[in-house]
């Protein structure tokens, strides 16, 4: 049976992160996971059992977690600092800025249960500011994998990087998006589906919803492209400009505030390249974010097959840009 993107359910990206990290750690004793009482939420319990000397428990102290990780990394250790994205990138933001990015210590910052993965727990546990915060800090690659393949590749790529990187994972099982043999490269987006009327430029756990919307739109004769923009920095500007040149409209999709995330980054690329294309940003608006499951929150804000198809349809039908 041939593989069709968007049809087979895989594991949670977090599980794949933990499995990939364990493989790396078993190959190389310098690989370390540093956790803030987060080994359970990081799916690192099997890791801790298999390579106990390669797990550094810090306790619930995210600032300390990042500072210690920077010190470990300075000695040549391959350090994954693993903590819920909401705490890692807010409470420890100064440590990320100074100890890791400014000091150029090659820590791999891993934001777990990112976006609204902890949707029902309230805004304390949502991480919808992290891309904006990190985009404004120099010297940090930002990767938001969409499926299990992208996750495994991103973790392996991060382990090889000599500079800071932020990875962001959710905890719901993800649908496979890429055919076997697909090549993953940091900074180079992946085309999930070809299309020429509208382009969905989506990132992370929203990509599958863009793909399902594209399938729906096809039935109406609308050809929708789906791009998985897994790397937010460096941004794949070629793919964004190609979408503007080859499609009539662009819809960006992200599990993040509309302020300062993927959408605004794409808008800046397009405007500064003088591309005037119909354009919408789908993400979370500037309001007290609703609570519920990740999917309920997605649906509420139009990050669903129906919502995204509707946005694309209206955008294509609009006469003003």
């Amino acid at each position: 049976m041939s593989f069709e993107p968007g049809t087979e359910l895989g594991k949670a990206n977090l599980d794949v992160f933990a499995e990939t990290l364990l493989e790396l750690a078993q190959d190389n004793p310098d690989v370390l996971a540093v956790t803030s009482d987060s080994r359970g939420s990081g799916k690192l319990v099997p890791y801790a059992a298999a390579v106990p000397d390669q797990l550094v428990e810090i306790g619930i102290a995210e600032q300390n977690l990042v500072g210690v990780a920077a010190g470990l990394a300075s000695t040549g250790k391959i350090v994954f600092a693993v903590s819920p994205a909401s705490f890692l990138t807010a409470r420890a933001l100064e440590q990320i800025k100074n100890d890791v990015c400014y000091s150029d210590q090659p820590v791999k910052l891993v934001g777990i249960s990112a976006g609204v993965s902890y949707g029902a727990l309230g805004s304390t546990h949502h991480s919808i500011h992290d891309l904006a915060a990190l985009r404004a800090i120099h010297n940090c690659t930002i990767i938001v994998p969409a499926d299990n393949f992208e996750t495994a590749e991103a973790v392996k790529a991060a382990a090889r990087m000599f500079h800071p990187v932020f990875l962001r994972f959710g905890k719901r099982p993800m649908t496979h998006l890429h055919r076997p043999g697909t090549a993953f490269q940091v900074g180079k987006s992946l085309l999930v589906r070809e299309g020429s009327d509208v382009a969905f430029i989506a990132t992370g756990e929203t990509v599958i919803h863009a793909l399902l919307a594209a399938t729906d739109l096809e039935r109406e004769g609308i050809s929708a492209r789906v791009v998985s923009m897994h790397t937010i920095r460096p941004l794949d500007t070629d793919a964004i400009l190609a979408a503007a040149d080859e499609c009539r409209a662009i819809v960006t999709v992200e599990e993040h505030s509309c302020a300062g995330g993927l959408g605004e980054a794409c808008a800046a690329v397009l405007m500064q390249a003088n591309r005037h294309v119909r354009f919408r940003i789908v993400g979370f608006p500037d309001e007290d974010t609703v609570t519920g499951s990740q999917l309920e929150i997605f649906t509420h804000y139009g990050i669903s097959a129906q919502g995204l198809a509707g946005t694309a349809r209206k955008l294509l039908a609009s006469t003003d840009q």
Partner: protein
Amino acid sequence: MTAVVLRIKSIQYRLRLLEYIKKAGAGHTGGSLSCVDILNVLYNRVLNVSPENFADSRRDRYIQSKGHSVEALYVVLADKGFFPESDLETLCRFRSPYVGHPTRKIRGIEQNTGALGHGLAFSVGVALAGKKDNADYRVYTLLGDGELAEGSNWESMLTAAHYHLDNLTAIVDRNQLQISGHTESVCRLECLTEKFQAFGWSVRSVDGHDVTALADVLGSIPFEVGKPSMVIARTIKGKDVSFMEHDAKWHHGVPSDEQYERARRELETLLMEAGA
């Protein structure tokens, strides 16, 4: 290096750091003067680190958490040959790498610091890596006393004790002053010894300007096997310049021409008295 030579070096360092602060028109004068003797003893008596072994993973590490006193560090590193002292003529100038806080762009500096409450966590990481690798290097960090109000320090103290990091030493430049005034009136710290002990550290207090006493204390680390070592160095902010001592206004005060001349004369007198 004998105590007399160390004492002379300290005064020479004070003269130089004042010269570069005066030329730059900027700098953290009081705190640099208070920690010079500590840096002097570390770099000339304690640390196994030099321009020759700086790339060697077995070198000792010094991380200056109170980054604002970078002028003291710069003159000591220049004296040790990490870079030509004439580089310091560019201190704080446009695009000079010699900025007002430590950065790794300068040879000899391990980590970018300056925001307070960061150096100890980094040092814990380096010390923990040393334990994992069975390396015998040691890690030293210098904290300001005002800096101790940053909660991150206390998080890192927990971790250092938890992992029995007896290869780690923190030194507090206990000059009793911070930018707004006396530490005990800004945010009470005492009883510091008991607090550090309660956090699992082995603590010693020392006259932070007595180079012999400093060398003795820093030479007997770890104080207890299995525990990180804390040195409370009792110091005087603005040390050795009469009108700067014990005065918070010199935290980042830059002397006028007249004040600079007066400070220079005082230090030169001390230099003669020390036998230079």
